[in-house]
Structure formats: structure tokens, C-alpha cells
């Protein structure tokens, strides 16, 4: 890894079990609840809720194709961005290679069933949506591994 220079972000990915990842990187992509965002060094302090999707830690640079990009599939959580520090609190985080696609597909089916059976209950719809988006994020994340 490159020597930490002054314009590097200290990125930490923390799950309920342990600190999963800690490194310096110039840029991070985050799946915030209402869309992806990218954070560079010197970003204004920010607090956001995360949705389901991929966190990309671009250790090599901003180009997402750079080989030095670490990718984690996270589902729900929170992130704190400070000028030189990004701390991601994820409810669940997986490496894309670790995703069990068949299980994710089962989850998607389950979510779709929940969606159909939700009826008029708003709560059930929200829950179904959560399950579906989590499953979709996992599947697309796993599919990207196969492409490379």
C-alpha cells in the first residue's frame, strides 16, 4: 500500500462483530440510503444512513476500474464523514466473493412474496422493500465479480 500522504482518507468499516477493514484511501464510494455518493479528502462533515449496496474504497485512485479498489457489499448502516476520516458502521458487510448467490435469490423470492402479501399494511411493504433491495444489491454485487 502506498505511504499515507496528507490527502488520504482514513477509512474504517465496522460491523457489529468486528472492525472489518481499516486503510488509507484517497476516495470512497458509499451507498447512502437515497443514492450513491463519493467522498474525497476534505469533504465537509456529514452523517448519513446507508442503504444496501457496495462500498468501494479506491485505494489506487478515483477511477473505479483501478485494480486497487476494495469492494464490500453492505446492507444498512450509518456513515460519518469528516475531512480526513470516513467511518462506516454497517449492519452487515460481505466481500463480493463471499456472497451466496442462491441464498440471495431465495431472499429475493421471499421479498417478492412479502410484497405480494403485504396488502394494505405500510409496515409490511417497507419490510418487503428492504428485503428486496438487500437481495438485489447482493446479486448485482456478486455478478460483478464474475465479469472480471
Amino acid at each position, binding site marked *: 500500500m502506498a505511504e499515507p500522504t496528507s490527502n488520504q482518507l482514513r477509512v474504517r468499516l465496522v460491523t457489529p462483530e468486528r472492525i472489518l477493514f481499516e486503510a488509507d484511501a484517497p476516495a470512497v464510494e458509499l451507498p447512502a440510503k437515497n443514492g450513491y455518493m463519493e467522498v474525497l479528502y476534505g469533504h465537509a462533515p456529514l452523517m*448519513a444512513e446507508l442503504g444496501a449496496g457496495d462500498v468501494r474504497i479506491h485505494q489506487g485512485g478515483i477511477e473505479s476500474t483501478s485494480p486497487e479498489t476494495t469492494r464490500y457489499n453492505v446492507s444498512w448502516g*450509518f456513515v460519518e464523514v469528516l475531512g480526513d476520516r470516513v*467511518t462506516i458502521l454497517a449492519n452487515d458487510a460481505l466481500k463480493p466473493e463471499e456472497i451466496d448467490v442462491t441464498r440471495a435469490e431465495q431472499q429475493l423470492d421471499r421479498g417478492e412474496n412479502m410484497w405480494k*402479501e403485504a396488502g394494505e399494511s405500510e409496515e409490511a411493504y417497507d419490510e418487503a422493500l428492504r428485503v428486496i433491495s438487500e437481495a438485489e444489491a447482493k446479486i448485482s454485487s456478486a455478478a460483478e465479480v464474475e465479469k472480471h
Partner: protein
Amino acid sequence: MANVLDLRRRIRSVKNTRQITKAMKMVSAAKLRRAQERALAARPYARMITSVLQSLRGRVDLFDEKTGNLCSPLFVTRPEKRVLLIVVSGDKGFAGAFNANILKVAYQFINGNPDKEIDIEAVGRKSRDQLRRRYPAAVYTEQTDEHGQTLQVRSARQGNVELTGDHPGLLVKLEISRVEALAHNIIARYVHEEIDAAYIVYNEFKSVISQRLVVERLLPLIEVGKQQITGAVEPTAEEKERRAEAALSAGIDLEPADTTEAEEEAKKFGTQNVDYIYEQPPSELFAGLLPQYIFSMLYHAMTESVAAEHAARMTAMDSATNNASDMIDDLTLHMNRVRQAAITKEIIEIVSGAAAL
């Protein structure tokens, strides 16, 4: 009087038992080490959730300006009529009084609140088995509402205390998803006013010698970031000494690894004295964080309980090994005496036989 051969057999059998208890002790020690590591690794997350909640708490008005309602239903306090009690015990025996002590505290809680309706959620096989024998399980019936959906409706109570659920084997391989499901279940019950408060009974584990049984309040949240302990049982000095002895002989550190630095680091999360841009309205963030906070409290209780269970088993097996050694010593002494007595008797017989000639 037993003869030498019998005694020898007896000694061999005790030796075998000692072998087993010794092995179990070493296994427990290894598991304890792993459980301790896991508890430590889980701490940054819990710490961060707590500190960000505390800092948000200062920025968010708990009461909605327009309606005057509390911003999260988890802060609502109601008179405690129906209480949920989560009992965290072990899955296996052979751990001394570990499970019995937890159940004792649980029964104390139940007997101390005779006028309340108590729902029990049993975590761990041992407490489930015991509680199931004493209290009836809650009965649910399926009903169809006007929209044609089936609903689970709880039937009339059979007594003040009922078992609403059990989770055997949850602690064997502490899976985040299962603990999360339990946390969501508890929160949903609280929000739907099925319960007015939630308490958890578990064995707190700071280090091998510093542990105690506590009753902690999960809900309602009265103050974020402070343990709401409503009852605790400290171990006696003698017990502490035994634990320390057992830990030393198994090569376990008495004091946990120093994590103050990491803790300090984690405390900073979300508390910088700057104006954050909140991607979502702070109240929404707050509402999103609260279930996570409940989850992390639950997970924390479970990781500690697992470590305490292994520590208790290690101590119990260490005592058993010592007792077996003492027994072997006694038996060996006894056997030697018997053997000598037999030899003496034979000599007397020979000598008196020779004298008679």
C-alpha cells in the same frame, strides 16, 4: 474392607475421570479466549452507536415541535403492566452453578413482580428447559381479518407468566442475523404496546474475576448510553478466588487486554464538534439508529454471557480436576495401608507358623 485390587481399579477409574475433566477445562479455556476476543471485537461498534446517539440526542429535540409527540416510540414510558423478560443462560450443563444462578435471578424478578404480566423469552437451552416446565407457553391462534389476511392472535393468558419464545442454540454460533431478528421482534412488540417494558437477565463479564449477574432494562430507553441496571448479584470473594485460580492454571489473563485507546477512538464517532451535514433529517437518523442500539445491547449481553459460561465451565472443571486429584491421593494412601496390612498379616502368619514348628 476393600482389597487392594478393588482399590487399584477405583483409582484407575478416578484417574480416567480426571483426564476428562482436565480436557474439558482446557477446551473451555480455549473457548473462553475466543469468546473474550469476540466480545472485545464487538465493542467498537457498540461504542460508536452509543456515542453517535448521545451526540445526536443533544441536537435533536425528543419532542416533535408541532404535535408534541416523542420522536421515537421507544422513548415512550407507560405504566409497567406487561413486561418482557429475556433470560440468557447457557446451552450446556457442566458449568457449576452458572445456569442455576441465572434462573434464580429470573425467578426473583418474576416473584418480585407478582402483579405484572410477564412474558419470557428464553435464550439458551438450559433456561428454556427449566422455564418450560414451570410456565405455560403462550398460545396463538390464526384469525382472518376483514381484508382476508391471516393474523396470529394471542389467546387468553393461562397465567401471569407465559413463555412467548425460545432460542435454543442461538449462543452456540452467535449469528448477527438471528440476534437482529430477536431485537426487531422485541421492538415491534414494544411499539405495538404488547409489552410495556423489556428486561434482560444475563451474566455480565468484564474479565475472569470481574463478573456479575445483572437485570438490565432494554426498553423503554430512558437515557441513551447508560446501562440501566435494576438488579445485580456480585460473586462472593471465595468464588472470585476460585475463578482466578482456575484461570491462572489454564493460562488465561486475569485482566482483559487494554483497549482504552481503541475505546477513546471509537467514542469520537459522530461527536466531533462540527456542523454535520445530515443526509437525512436528524430525527430520521435518530429513529434509524435506535433499533441498532437495542440490537447492540442485546448482542453485547449475549457475547458476555457466552464468555461467562465458558469461564464458569472452566472453573467448575478445574475444581473437578482438583477434587479427583485429592481423591486419588486419599485412595492411594488407603490402598497402601491395606496392602501393608495384608503383608503384615501374611508375615505374622508365616512367623507364627514357623514358631509352632
